[in-house]
């Protein structure tokens, strides 16, 4: 087998050095009842060529985004990732390293994580960021738990209706066995301001945090300033969620608008769609809360000769030191995805990011214009970044299926996320990144107009 260096001679030599008669000797602590003598009922080994072929077969049964006019977003976005990114992250010294426990031979990882933390903190408008969590949804759950620790005694987190439904579900799961009470406001895509008003009205003295996504799941942009003010007036924290980080090249950062903890899905920068994972949880907050943060942190220090270097630090928050008293149980995080993020961000730079964000926004304004004229289609957003929602005069899911047949992946029907809510059945959520051309938009609006012609 190509991954195993030993041949039978090696194995015999080693067994005899150990003084074992056979390999079975070494497994003698396994209870006899549990020893497998025969091979399991699975296929035998395959050559690299055969494996390659099998995976091409799997791949062929999928429709890659690049082959369609592609408008699917809703928490994961298709952007162009420069070839440089994928090349660099595959350098073996990065790819095959472990968590940097031995800093003298892991400065590569540690320095890029320090750069990453700085980029993330600056992008989100916060004092400090950690070295990543699993993804945006678990980062959101961790933020709620952290707010609970900071506002001791307060037990209620209030989730805006525009929070991505999966994030709300994950928050409920993660808090389920604590004494936290998670209140989820109903989604109201036709009334973005109403969502914020109801959120503010719901804050009380028992509220640990309010959780607001912007742009929200339906594409609406929210000014977090008034929400931060309302939350702070009641002693609660504002947790801001961003699922499309490219927006921050154009839109004021949540930190600047007053958020106390900002979490984001970082996939958009540097990482492919990957059918949902691996992704990259970004987590940032105020300096005064740093000891309550979950996850790894890299800090600057010096070596014995006084040279600058970087190490994992403040680990008394973490499971390997604090065990059951840790701020989180996380260990392995999203290392290589943060490398992809930091390389792509370095290629963009501030100017590139601004431009990229405006391109995304421009395409969304063009999409809105194109859809607005279609009979039976109502665009719901007045302020948005690269995603808009429309209310159709009929259920959205079959329309999406019909468009898929015409080589257009037209976005996410809200029913995919809220199957039980009849009031959302006609909502379709569409995203436009820089990868969406004007021709794609024209193809979509033509095809959609055609489908909407048909009588209900």
């Amino acid at each position, binding site marked *: 087998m190509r991954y195993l260096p030993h041949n039978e001679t090696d194995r015999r030599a080693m067994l005899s050095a150990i003084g074992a008669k056979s390999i079975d000797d070494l497994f003698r602590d396994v209870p006899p009842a549990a020893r497998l003598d025969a091979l399991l009922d699975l296929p035998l080994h395959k050559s690299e060529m055969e494996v390659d072929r099998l995976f091409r077969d799997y791949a062929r049964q999928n429709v890659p985004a690049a082959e369609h006019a592609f408008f699917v977003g809703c928490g994961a976005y298709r952007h162009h990732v*420069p070839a440089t990114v994928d090349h660099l992250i595959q350098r073996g010294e990065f790819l095959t390293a472990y968590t940097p426990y031995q800093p003298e031979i892991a400065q590569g*990882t540690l320095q890029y994580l320090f750069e990453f933390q700085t980029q993330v903190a600056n992008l989100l408008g916060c004092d400090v960021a950690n070295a990543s969590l699993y993804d945006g949804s678990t980062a959101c759950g961790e933020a709620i738990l952290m707010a609970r620790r900071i506002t001791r005694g307060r037990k209620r987190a209030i989730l805006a209706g525009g929070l991505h439904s999966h994030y709300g579900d994950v928050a409920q799961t993660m808090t389920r066995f604590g004494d936290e009470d998670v209140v989820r406001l109903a989604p109201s895509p036709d009334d973005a301001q109403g969502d914020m008003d109801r959120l503010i009205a719901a804050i009380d003295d028992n509220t640990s945090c309010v959780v607001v996504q912007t742009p929200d799941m339906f594409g609406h942009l929210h000014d977090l300033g008034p929400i931060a003010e309302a939350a702070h007036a009641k002693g609660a924290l504002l947790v801001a969620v961003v699922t499309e980080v490219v927006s921050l090249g154009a839109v004021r950062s949540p930190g600047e608008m007053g958020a106390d903890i900002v979490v984001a899905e970082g996939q958009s920068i540097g990482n492919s769609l990957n059918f949902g994972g691996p992704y990259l949880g970004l987590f940032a907050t105020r300096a005064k809360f740093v000891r309550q943060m979950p996850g790894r942190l890299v800090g600057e220090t010096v070596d*014995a000769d006084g040279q600058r270097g970087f190490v994992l630090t403040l680990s008394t928050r973490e499971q390997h030191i604090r065990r059951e008293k840790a701020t989180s149980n996380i260990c392995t995080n999203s290392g290589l995805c943060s490398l992809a993020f930091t390389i792509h961000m370095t290629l963009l730079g501030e100017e590139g990011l601004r431009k990229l964000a405006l391109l995304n926004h421009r395409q969304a304004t063009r999409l809105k214009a194109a859809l607005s004229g279609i009979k039976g289609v109502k665009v719901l957003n007045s302020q948005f970044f690269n995603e808009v929602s429309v209310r159709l005069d009929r259920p959205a899911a079959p329309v999406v299926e019909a468009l898929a047949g015409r080589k257009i992946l037209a976005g996410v029907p809200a029913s995919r996320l809220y199957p039980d809510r009849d009031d959302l059945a006609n909502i379709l959520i569409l995203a436009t990144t820089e990868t969406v051309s004007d021709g794609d938009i024209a193809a979509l609006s033509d095809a959609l107009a055609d489908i909407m012609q048909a009588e209900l």
Partner: protein
Amino acid sequence: MSMNRTGRPTQSGPNSSNNAVPFETTSGHRGLHLVEPLIFEIGDARHSGVDLEDVGDFDHALGGLEREDRMGLPGLSEPETVRHYTRLSQKNYGIDSGFFPLGSCTMKHNPRINEKVARLPGLADIHPLQPESTVQGALAVMRDLAHWLTTLTGMPSVALSPKAGAHGELCGIMAIRSALEARGDARKVILVPESAHGTNPATAAFCGYQVKAIPANDDGRVDLAALKAALGPDVAGIMLTNPNTCGLFERDIIEIADAVHEAGGFFYCDGANFNAIVGRVRPGDLGIDAMHINLHKTFSTPHGGGGPGSGPVVFSKALAPYAPIPFVEEGEEGLFLREHKAAEGDKSFGRLVAFHGQMGMYVRALAYMMSHGADGLRQVAEDAVLNANYLLHELASDMTPSFEGPCMHEALFDDRFLKDTGVSTLDFAKAMIDEGYHPMTMYFPLVVHGAMLIEPTETESKDTLDQFIASMRALAKAARADETDRFTGAPYFAPLKRLDETRAARQPILKWTAPQSQEAAE
């Protein structure tokens, strides 16, 4: 001084220190030891390594929320970017660089065919919310991975979505708690052996449980009598690693499972060490109820400097109904995802993560399994165990094994052999860096003093192991021969000398700030 065959002098051992350089270079570089600044020191806001079309003028619809501040995100051109990260990579040690016997982490070779197929557009360039009719191949990957995992573990079901080992633990303990609550049982305690990984007690606490530690016996295994004494009506279950973190198979595991079940609790197995037994033992035959599998250990997906991982959890029949959504099912029109709980009677504890988990890791792990096949995977376990026992045996005379063998996939030593030498486990590890090795896991597990946990994995050759053995023996002898400086000053040959971790924690600098603003702040 040694000579090579042409008579040219060659560099000799560590005593000819590279500190004795007679001059400083102008650049600060030293040949291949290249100093690399932070991007914030070499890039700026007006440089970029991407070309984007001109946006032109258009009416914004940002509601007056335009970003106006300086973002502090420097850019570099493409060649500068490539050089920056290439230089950083050269300050790193990976499996590709050399032997990486980091115990409990299973640092095996990461096959490149896995990387290649994971990047096929049909698998990488697909969106988690595309219509299911357009992702039948992706769902087939998930179905097939599930089949391999349930067959290898002998368990009836698997939840694929957890994103790493610790996340899998969360998944398992949540299922246990849900099952207990469903029968109206409010048990409060999870038993965790002292040797457990830190994520185990942290997970139990995360799920609202009190953690009760169970001591190890002199054999490095769970003290069965202490365990039985601790069991009772308040115990929700046990989290036990098997093979355990001392690298030993828990001989009494079936009895442990029976005792836990008899007391009304559940058995969570930490499967981080599955590599030792894959194809030779099915955890399902040991009586467990749930176990996570680190695809980034046993099934070769790269660690990537700390992730991403993937931690599917296999479940027994009793716990399967409580597993999280989503999962793949077969319907009349092909495969589909069950993404939501059914309205009535669905016992799933809910959703653990947005979307469907770590597809990129599923593809790599499945490619690895198919490459090995049933036969190869069994050989994996055998060679991993053989290598560990070889090291244990060959190092036993110079170091101090903590427990009697045979071991499984890793060999545990403690610091008794360093007694009175003035050399600590940490010093010893740093001296290994000078020998060209990544150190073993240090100070874990906590049940022995100054632990050194060595896991060679099956992808190391006998030659590599023999060279490593020679280095380790020589180091142990040097420590006993009072060559203390070689250890306390180590590493001498790494890009940096030993780093000051106390200072990092005392005055945390967690992000770069421009020098002027630093001064202004002072």
